[in-house]
């Protein structure tokens, strides 16, 4: 266990919020991302699929599962695959280089979980989360404000900001450099995930209409 502080006990409210998040994520995997193209659909399905499985595992095992060293890796898959989906959908000419960046980021974050000092781990997280987080946050806002997508698509950007906050809080907690106390993070996490999921749902449904 990398963080010695005792994990907060999961409450019924936490479980309900995570269940709602899981159901919404399942809906997104199944029906919320249709007719967007093969790579965007697969990328979004991976992101929402990881959210679904992660939500179910926290419901089953409690917040103690967040003590696993794999949490940083799992928390990275979501923004990386989501940003890959956005680039594949809206900036196809950038898809090749960005796919390389996504693959390298994932590998570096995975490898630095097992080798390397704290500094390199933090740098890998900042680059991976930072760039993909900025894409999820900025691309939907820019597209919406420029009128290229419906206005509601900007909610994906809001969801991106929330997932960026959640992912960073968890990652830095796991690094032993917490931004907020562990208890505070675990108290707000289920609500944050649910609101984020609602934002994604609203944002992507705007594309379907």
């Amino acid at each position: 266990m990398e963080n010695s502080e005792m994990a907060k006990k999961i409450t019924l409210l936490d479980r309900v919020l995570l269940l709602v998040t899981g159901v919404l994520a399942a809906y997104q995997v199944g029906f919320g991302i249709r007719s967007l193209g093969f790579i965007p659909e697969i990328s979004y399905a991976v992101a929402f699929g990881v959210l679904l499985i992660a939500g179910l595992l926290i419901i089953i095992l409690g917040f103690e599962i967040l003590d696993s060293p794999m949490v940083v890796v799992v928390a990275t898959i979501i923004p990386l695959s989501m940003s890959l989906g956005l680039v594949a959908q809206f900036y196809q000419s950038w898809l090749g280089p960005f796919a390389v960046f996504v693959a390298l980021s994932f590998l570096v974050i995975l490898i630095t979980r097992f080798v390397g000092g704290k500094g390199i781990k933090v740098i890998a997280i900042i680059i991976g989360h930072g760039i993909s987080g900025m894409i999820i946050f900025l691309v939907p806002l820019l597209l919406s404000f420029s009128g290229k997508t419906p206005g509601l698509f900007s909610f994906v950007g809001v969801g991106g900001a929330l997932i960026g906050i959640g992912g960073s809080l968890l990652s830095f907690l796991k690094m032993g450099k917490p931004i907020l106390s562990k208890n505070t993070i675990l108290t707000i996490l289920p609500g944050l995930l649910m609101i984020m999921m609602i934002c994604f749902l609203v944002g992507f449904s705007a594309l379907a209409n």
Partner: protein
Amino acid sequence: MKSGQTNPQFPLKLASIRQKYWPLIKSLQTGLLLITGLAGYMSSRCPVSHIPTLLSLTGSLFLAISGSTVLNMWFDRDIDAIMERSKKRPLPTGLVQPGEALTLGLAISVLGVGWALILDPIYGTIVFAGLFFDMIVYTVWLKRRTAWSIVWGGISGGMPILAGRALGLGHIDWIGIALAASVLFWIPTHIMTFNIRYLDDYNRARVPTFASLYGVDTTRKIIAASSVLATIFMGLSSYGVGLTIGYTRILAVLSGGLLILALYSAIKPSEKLNFGLFKFASIYMLSSMLLISA
């Protein structure tokens, strides 16, 4: 008591009967198997247009599965009294007498199988086969002799979904067999994680398990291999049923979750992860059944 008046003791009496006998049917396990039967039926008859058949399927399967479970409880009451996790069940505590349980188990089994046979001979025969494999082959014959009895337990567990589909179609097809195989291979994920969790209990009761025979590490690898097979057969069944792409994607995500959890549990085992796998396997089966029914 005048006619039209209700006996104020009646609800209390009902509650007392429920408290006494309901634990005998292991409602969660019975409920999950019943859901597989309904899913098997709906996989061939969706949308369901013949409600009386659906209700008869529900009633007969519920009675047959419950009857089989009560008979198991009756036969295994000596084991249950030794095992920590089961010693508070109605039979070991003396809340229900063995004769009562045997009579109840036989009565509802006969009612369930009889109802099933009247409904459809093929369906009824499969329901009977499930009860026979579970009670006679698994519980009476093999459970105390070999850890491999779980295979027969798994086969009997796959019978409700095969029966449900056969009732819908009027015959047995490869999809029904694939669905039954997915349940058969899911059962080790469910039962063996349970065996590992309560290994001391099983050893004390001298019930052979894979964990006691081949060791916990090997058992975890078998669980992982079994999960792979369960997801393959579930995928095959969903293809046969003609699941839409959306539902297939959800099933793929859940299958991926089960596989990763089983593999991770084999590579980096822990008690917590083992329990998580046990619970996730139940969620997986329930969700898969809802998806193939949709």
